[in-house]
Each structure stands twice: as C-alpha cells, then as structure tokens.
C-alpha cells in the first residue's frame, strides 16, 4: 500500500526532504508511519498531522493513496 508524505517548515529541515512516496502496511497510524520514516526518533512536541488536507490526530489510520503531512504549529497571519 502506497502513500504520499509531505513535510513542511522545520519538520522538512529535520527529515531532510520535502516529500516522498512510501510503502506502508495496512492499518498503520500516522504515528507508526512517523516511527517508520524516522527509525523511531522522537516526535516533535505539538507536531500537526493532516491527511488529504484535513487535520487528523496521530492515531489516524492511513489508506492506500492518502496524502499524509507532518508540520509544526502554524505561524501565518
């Protein structure tokens, strides 16, 4: 099962790339995918998670073809 992952702002700096396509197992949550991507490194406090352009919590289960995004608290306006 393939998903598309995006990183923004200091999370992109941390990961070292802005996006990637990855293979995940069925039933994996956003948090489990973070651990997969980072080899289990700590999740930044207050990290925000979106799936298909909607906020979700870190226990959200991903589906095939989803667009998952990790980013820090927003600072626009």
């Amino acid at each position, binding site marked *: 099962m393939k998903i598309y992952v*995006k990183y*923004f*702002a200091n999370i992109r700096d941390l990961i070292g790339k802005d996006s990637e396509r990855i293979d995940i197992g069925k039933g994996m949550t956003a948090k489990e995918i973070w651990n997969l991507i980072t080899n289990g490194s700590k999740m930044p*406090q207050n*990290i925000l998670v979106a799936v298909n*352009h*909607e906020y979700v919590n870190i226990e959200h289960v991903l589906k095939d073809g989803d667009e998952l995004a990790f980013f820090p608290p927003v*600072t626009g*306006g």
Partner: protein
Amino acid sequence: MKIEIIKEQFDPWEMLVDYKKNQLQNDAKIGASSIFLGTMRDFNDDKDIKSMELEHYPGMTEKYLTKLVDDSIQKFKIIDGLVIHRVGLLKPTDPIVLVATWSEHRDNAFNATREIMESLKSEAPFWKKESTNTGFKWVKPKGQSEDVVDES
C-alpha cells in the same frame, strides 16, 4: 467570497476596491465593513528582522480558508468575506494578510473578521522564517516552548 494566496507584494486597498466593484453583490444592503490588515514589522522578540520567508501548504491552505470563510458567512450571517494571504519573500511593511467581511449591521462584521483572524492564526497552514543578523530562524507561535520533546 474570495480566497487568494499571493506570491507577489499586493496593495490591499486596490484589491478591496476591485473586489467590491466587480464581485460584491447587494451593495445597498451593506451597512458595515470590517477589515483587518496584518503587515510585516521590522522587529520580533526584540530582534531586528531583515526579511521573512512565508511558506504554505498548497491545497490544504486554500481548502482551510475557504471552509473558514464559508462557515463564518453562515455563523455570523455576513453578506460576504474575503481573505488574501501573502507567501514568498517579504520585507518589513509588506502586507501579509487582508481579511474583509461585509454585513448589514456592525456586530456581525466585527465578530466575523475577528474570528477569521483568530482561526487563521491558530490553524491555517502557513509558516514564517525570519532573517536576522544572526541567520534564519523558524518563527514559534506565541507561548510555545522548544520543540523536539517526546510525547510518546
């Protein structure tokens, strides 16, 4: 309704006049216009800011703002609403965000513009990176502690 993410410097008053003239209906029903303009300062947390890079999440940002203004039209019974937000490289005094709402009575427009700004500041996916004498730094939200703390 209009939502626009704009890469170049913009003139907020020109955009307001243009929108009002060409797109806003029921002019003579409007008794109140509440407008907020956020502009870039040359200081933050006592540091001098030279320039700022504003990043967004293309697709999600527009979707978030569209729903925000749509919801405000319903909730506050306003006639219409507009949000313009700058991205890219900004210099001090540049407009960052323009929010405008129109209603029959002032209470509705005042409350709608305020709530749109508060939601935008706390939830719309934009990120600021400031350039100072000592280099680049991602801006932290007010009252936010350092990141990379385990929450697992």
